[in-house]
């Protein structure tokens, strides 16, 4: 085996360890240096054992961003997870949660039932027990109608400027408002939105060690996106995890030139809108919001800077502060019974930093981050797209609704 993911470049400086939110919160987690390059080196002589502790990695990739020497710690840990797959205690739960698009289809189709199971005290405790979820975990409620189904009902604009939207499960099944805001904002810029067939981006499976299954979803998406990419369309993601996966993980894991080509066409929604920042600015009406922006880890890991921050700062009258840190939710991680403690512990630190800023409202790009932040604080949390769209609409309504699990 030849060294992979920069194992050889590691200087053992533990910078990655210092950046790892889980290592700080969970005493049993050995951290990215040990599980990544150290362990990886032992795996090369086939004497390394699998380590059940890899389970604790949230795949936030902060370690990889922090490492100044190009070691791909998070990728190394994902590979270890895959090796330890069959020692997983909650194999079936993790597998099931790896298919949010299927859950989402069921959830939106039967939303009253689903929301009862997720929202009412009895339903929640039943679900939690069945699924080994934290008893107080608040699963996101399902929308009555998915974004895709809403979008099918919309006409297309006559514009010849078109982009492809990779919706992502959260915006599709739980918060269609995010996608709707994107469509509206792009419309202001005279850009039409195409929504091709798509399934979950594969991150939930991948970060739970089900690599082979994730690859299937990834290939499906590549097949459906590629024709548009060939025509020169950009692909927009409003979910940072989907965006990062399409940009980075697809090319690496699938190893095909098609995947790389798709990856090269992907934009985070704010990254894309920021290009038209000036044009957009003209449409934004003044608001009196006092905002704190939390950049999700997977947005940070795209290396795009903080485009949401620059966009939000363009809304006249708005005060925006920035907090650095991980919220600890990491997709379904924070929902899991055994992990929710650690997840909260991580989140609390961020919440403290946020409340120090005394905002009226928190903005963040990631659906599950917003779940965690609203669970742990009393603050309303919104996607920057939704806020921008509100500002563009001149919505006098003021604050965005607090995101609530369906009751």
């Amino acid at each position, binding site marked *: *085996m*030849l060294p992979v993911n920069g194992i*050889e470049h590691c*200087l053992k400086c533990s910078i990655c360890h210092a950046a790892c939110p889980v290592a700080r919160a969970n005493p049993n987690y050995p951290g990215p*240096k040990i599980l990544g390059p*150290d362990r990886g080196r*032992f795996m090369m002589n086939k*004497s390394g054992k699998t380590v059940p502790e890899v389970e604790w990695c949230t795949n936030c990739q902060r370690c990889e961003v922090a490492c100044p*020497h190009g070691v791909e710690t998070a990728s190394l840990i994902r590979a270890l997870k895959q090796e330890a797959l069959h020692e997983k205690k909650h194999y079936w739960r993790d597998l099931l949660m790896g298919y949010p698009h299927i859950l989402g289809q069921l959830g939106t189709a039967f939303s009253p039932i689903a929301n009862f199971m997720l929202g009412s005290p009895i339903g929640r405790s039943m679900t939690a027990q069945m699924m080994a979820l934290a008893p107080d975990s608040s699963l996101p409620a399902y929308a009555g109608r998915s974004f895709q189904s809403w979008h099918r009902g919309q006409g297309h604009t006559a514009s010849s400027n078109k982009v492809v939207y990779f919706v992502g499960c959260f915006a599709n099944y739980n918060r269609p408002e995010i996608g709707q805001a994107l469509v509206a904002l792009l419309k202001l810029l005279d850009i039409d939105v195409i929504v091709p067939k798509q399934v979950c981006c594969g991150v939930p499976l991948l970060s739970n060690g089900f690599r082979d299954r994730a690859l299937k979803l990834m290939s499906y998406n590549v097949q459906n996106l590629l024709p548009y990419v060939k025509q020169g369309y950009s692909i927009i993601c409003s979910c940072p995890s989907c965006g990062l996966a399409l940009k980075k993980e697809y090319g690496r894991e699938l190893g095909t030139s098609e995947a790389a080509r798709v990856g090269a066409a992907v934009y985070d929604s704010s990254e894309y809108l920021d290009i038209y920042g000036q044009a957009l600015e003209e449409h934004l009406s003044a608001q009196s919001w006092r905002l704190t922006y939390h950049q999700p880890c997977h947005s940070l890991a795209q290396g795009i800077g903080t485009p949401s921050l620059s966009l939000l700062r363009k809304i006249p009258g708005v005060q925006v502060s920035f907090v650095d840190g991980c919220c600890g939710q990491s997709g379904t991680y924070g929902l899991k019974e055994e992990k929710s403690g650690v997840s909260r512990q991580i989140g609390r630190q961020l919440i403290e930093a946020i409340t120090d800023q005394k905002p009226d409202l928190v903005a963040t790009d990631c659906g599950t981050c917003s779940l965690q932040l609203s669970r742990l604080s009393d603050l309303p949390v919104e996607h920057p797209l939704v806020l921008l769209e509100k500002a563009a609409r001149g919505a006098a309504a003021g604050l965005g609704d607090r995101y609530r699990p369906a009751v």
Partner: protein
Amino acid sequence: MIEEVDVVVIGGGATGAGTLWDLALRGIDAVLIEQHEPGYGTSGRNHGCLHSGGRYLVKDPELALECYRENQILRQVAGAAIEDTGGLFAHIKSDEQDYVRRWVDNAHRIGLPVEEVSATEARNMEPILSSEVDRVFTVPDAAVDPFDLIYMNLQGAVQKGARFMTETRVKELLIRDGRVQGVLAEDIRTKEVHEFRCRAVINAAGPWVGIIASLAGISLELTYGKGSLLVHATRLAQRQINRLRSPSDGDVLMPGKTVCLFGTTDIHIDNPDDTVTWADEVKSLIEMERPIFPDLPEMRVLRTVTGVRPLYTPGAAGTAERDANRGHAVINHGARDGVGGFFTIMGGKLTTYRLMAEQVVDEVARELGVTVACKTAETPLAGLSIGNARNFLETKAICECEQVTEDDLLTAAIFLDKVRSGGIRRMTRLGLGPCQGTLCIWRGALYLYRKGLLTDQECLTFIEESLDERWKGNRGVLWGDQIRQAELERGIYRGIYGSEGD
């Protein structure tokens, strides 16, 4: 202080340690004296191949057979120090074709099990192999960890009542009436002198045998060849890989635990202490990697290692180095030079250390009138209780690269007669990983200090010596990741020490 003992063994290499074990098994009271720490000499500076004999098939079929036999024996008795990696002999298109035929013929002749695999299959097994490789054979090579091997022999011997002393150099042989009566040995730090009265002395001083012999006024016809190796930071091959050609420089890539070693060079030197790796040696090793392992030159190199081969060339001065006798010699100086009770065992291989020990102890036993036969071929050696955990999650690791735990350090410190950086390093692998001690030298020294095994001054000495020793291996490979590591190390230790120092 004067001590009485039957036999003094000089040199704590594999040969000396094996000799001590053999003596102990035969019930002969013995002490081993080592000038630095066991494994300091050639035994700690080699590839660590447990040769199947494949390498010597054409040139020296007898040696090949000897290696093969010992290989089989050691797998039984020293299994804990051996990893059955298996070996490949890979031929590249441009190398001599006819050599393959002669090699295979001789393998059949001595009964060495070789099997041809297709070049494609071989590249699947070992992706590091060049596509220029056209024929590949498997052989029963294995990897032996020389440090584990030496310390296992010492451990076994100590359990049977033998003793060993480290950092003690033999300075004088006491000779009266044509017989060795004892030795004087000096602590290399305190200069304290120990006198041993004994009935026989075994000179197993590796490349230094000539110096020991000269203490008895005896001259041995020795030349020295140094061989250097590159230690790569990760394990890039699973099996020992030999270039199938007439033995030459840069033939072997040898995996060992977490690293792999490529080498060697072979350069005539005049002084057995000359273990500096020259810059052009490193250059030429890199070039030698290319034809058979094209990706290897780009892989991180941790350090260089240089070992010295003593070549005993009675009456054959001037022969080309590699062709000089690679077998071993047992010399009874009573018969040869009129110094009774004095024996030299030299040359040979790591692989044949047990046989060498057996042969010299046979001679000594005869002289001492001991009739117990050698038992080392049947008596298994217990593994070291170090590094076997290989699970840093159970115990706190001091060295995370090589997963050396607190318990490992403690075990070594208790086993060794002196707690010094060299012995601790070789016995536990502390600081042998990619960071080359950047973090663990400090951690390890501190741990030993806190356990009361080092004083505050000794603790600092431990650190300084370790850093300087690591630097000696690093300075030849200052490029890429390793020089960044060195800069980090300089920064960290400057910060830890401060400048005023001590």
